[in-house]
């Protein structure tokens, strides 16, 4: 397989290159970052280390400089073919990164993936990089907890640029009347109690997201039977669009995600009664969530939801976990510009 070097645009000087190493997730990693890099107004290339995903990516992004390298020698050929290269970005901390980390003249920056803040186990191998671009202070704290001495390693907060529009939308004052229900776990008691909750709130409009076909059909029949004002969705593609209209979000413990903080809306979370709330480990700390386990607790929350006493906590965590301010300040674009 050729390196695809002919794809290198000889008239542009590439400043940075993004190293994609996961055969199954390369597509996700590229799509997560590509808009950010496009907006940076710098020239860049992608280096893919898996032949199959390379084939897919060049079809999907024909306008981009996507290169392929199998061996360390191929990697060297590709680096040498881009003499203006200054920085390599690594979305994944993978074994193959060593093939690039041996180039002392390049700056090596770990940028992670959508979920790497939650999933990554910080360890000594991260010290190979020159810089880690983290979303927020929570990650800085995580690194400091794991290393006695960071040494040369620089941690830079860049926010989550992919969430900028969500942050901006969430600040707009719009009349909201929809309730978002997001249901992940078809076995949870939450689904069984759903009919009770829906009837309690029947004066509202619902947008319900379900990823289970059986529940979807059962719920559809139920909603039609009671003539409830609602829309049902089998996937989350409309989630970001509808969230702007939402009054609050109801979900369950299996489905709560750190990204919900970006919407800045009350988060009502169902916890099955057999689970001790204090033992729960969720992405978002409990003190920013309205937790309920039965109808009475739920009604109590709904009655007081307009006061939204947890708003400031949520905002604090949106800053601490997602780097809201750095995102709104376009920190990442400033830093990308400084690379040249």
């Amino acid at each position, binding site marked *: 397989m050729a390196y695809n070097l002919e794809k290198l645009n000889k008239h542009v000087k590439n400043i940075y290159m993004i190293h994609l190493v996961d055969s199954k997730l390369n597509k996700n990693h590229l799509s997560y970052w590509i808009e950010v890099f496009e907006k940076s107004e710098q020239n860049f290339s992608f280096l893919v280390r898996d032949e199959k995903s390379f084939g897919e990516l060049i079809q999907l992004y024909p306008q981009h400089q996507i290169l392929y390298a199998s061996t360390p020698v191929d990697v060297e050929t590709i680096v040498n073919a881009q003499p203006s290269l200054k920085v390599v970005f690594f979305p994944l901390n993978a074994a193959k990164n060593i*093939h690039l*980390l*041996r180039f*002392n003249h390049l700056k090596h920056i770990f940028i992670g993936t959508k979920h790497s803040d939650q999933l990554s186990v910080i360890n*000594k*191998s991260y010290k190979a990089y020159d810089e880690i671009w983290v979303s927020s202070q929570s990650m800085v704290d995580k690194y400091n907890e794991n*290393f006695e001495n960071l*040494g*040369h*390693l620089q941690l830079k907060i860049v926010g989550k640029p992919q969430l900028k529009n969500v942050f901006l939308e969430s600040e707009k004052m719009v009349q909201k009347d929809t309730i978002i229900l997001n249901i992940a776990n078809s076995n949870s008691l939450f689904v069984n109690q759903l009919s009770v909750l829906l009837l309690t709130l029947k004066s509202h409009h619902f947008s319900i997201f379900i990823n289970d076909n059986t529940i979807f059909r059962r719920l559809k029949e139920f909603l039609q039977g009671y003539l409830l004002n609602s829309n049902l969705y089998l996937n989350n593609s409309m989630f970001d669009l509808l969230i702007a209209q939402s009054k609050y979000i109801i979900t369950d413990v299996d489905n709560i995600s750190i990204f919900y903080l970006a919407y800045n809306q009350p988060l009502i979370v169902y916890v099955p009664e057999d689970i001790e709330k204090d033992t729960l480990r969720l992405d978002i700390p409990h003190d920013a969530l309205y937790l309920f386990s039965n109808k009475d607790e739920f009604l109590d929350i709904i009655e007081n939801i307009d006061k939204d006493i947890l708003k400031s906590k949520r905002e604090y965590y949106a800053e601490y976990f997602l780097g809201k301010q750095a995102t709104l300040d376009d920190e990442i674009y400033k830093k990308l510009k400084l690379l040249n």
Partner: protein
Amino acid sequence: MSKWTKFKNKPVLFFKDMVLNAVAKPKPKPKTKPKNIASFNYNMFYPYTHLLHTGENVTGLSHLDLWISYFKEADVEFVILVRNFELFELLKEKYPYITVLFAKGKKEVETYFKQLSHLKACFYPSNTGNNLHLLHHNHIKHIFIGHGDSDKTASAHKYFRVYDENWVAGEAHIDRFYNAGFDFSGLKNIKVGRPSLKEILQISEVDWRERFDGKLNLLYLSTWEGVYEEQNYTSVSIINTAFDSIYKYFDEINIKLHPWVGRREENLLRISKILETNLQEKEVAYKIAEKHINVDFLIKKANIFICDISAVITDSLAANAPIFVYIPKGKDIKLSKSKMGYEDYTYVFSNIEELVEKMEDVLNGNDYLKEKREEAMEYILGRDETLNDEFISQLQKLQG
């Protein structure tokens, strides 16, 4: 129909089938799944404190050979972890008294780490991607020990920062890091000398002219032609002609070619034969060493060296005898520089005339780099640390 019934009722068919079965091809054995995990002399309840890991294939054997005897000598509880099954089998055969583990992937490595609860340090002779499978254990000390000392750029790059400590031979390696131009403030460098060179250092206390009853024994150590032409530092293409001029000075010539000579340039595969044909015609004892012969063994028997740019220069340095180093002209030689360059302690040459001229001068008594060579022995090899068994002391210190 049973065989007996067949024999009774249809004897012709019985014998026909018997012959057919006898000549029929044996059924292929069902394919056994290649092993992902294996162990040798391993007791999961034993309190192993040191783990020596190589992520290389069978080439890792030479790296491990450098260190195993010193781990043994230090009398620490150690285990070797390899990632290649062929290497695992080789180790079992070569070192039947040591504990060896084979783990193919990260999952298998984890299986062992769950059992090795007394582990205090992991040692790495080379930088391979799969070292990553061990590095996430933050409570264990990760130590790079290398497999020789060289000025090649691979000796000092940013990946080294993943380790807690870098055990180096001498001060030169630390300077290579300073000169590489990146921040390595989180990495602790510890001088431990080169234990494998201790015996040669002891021999080198006798002046090189007085060794071997005044005989002159030349050792030629080549490198290979490299992946790219710009990395081609080998002297194999000129050495045959050079021997025509210099053989007469020596009582014995030993040759050890890099095992990869001819890998890129096929015409170099014949070099061994060419050298042999040439030297056969001359009045000199000679030997072309087999691939498996250890360089240290050959160094002990020589008191003049011709080397290409590679780790063998520092190995030869331990012998404290004149070293002639081939530096090809017109190449952009990327080296990881220390305070001492090759020209400071070796006689460098770029062509045959230069080699002959410098060699004659030295053999006539003008070994003008002697003092600098001795300085380099301390600076590059860590002579004192080697002679004082510093490596062994450091291993024991970790045992606690």
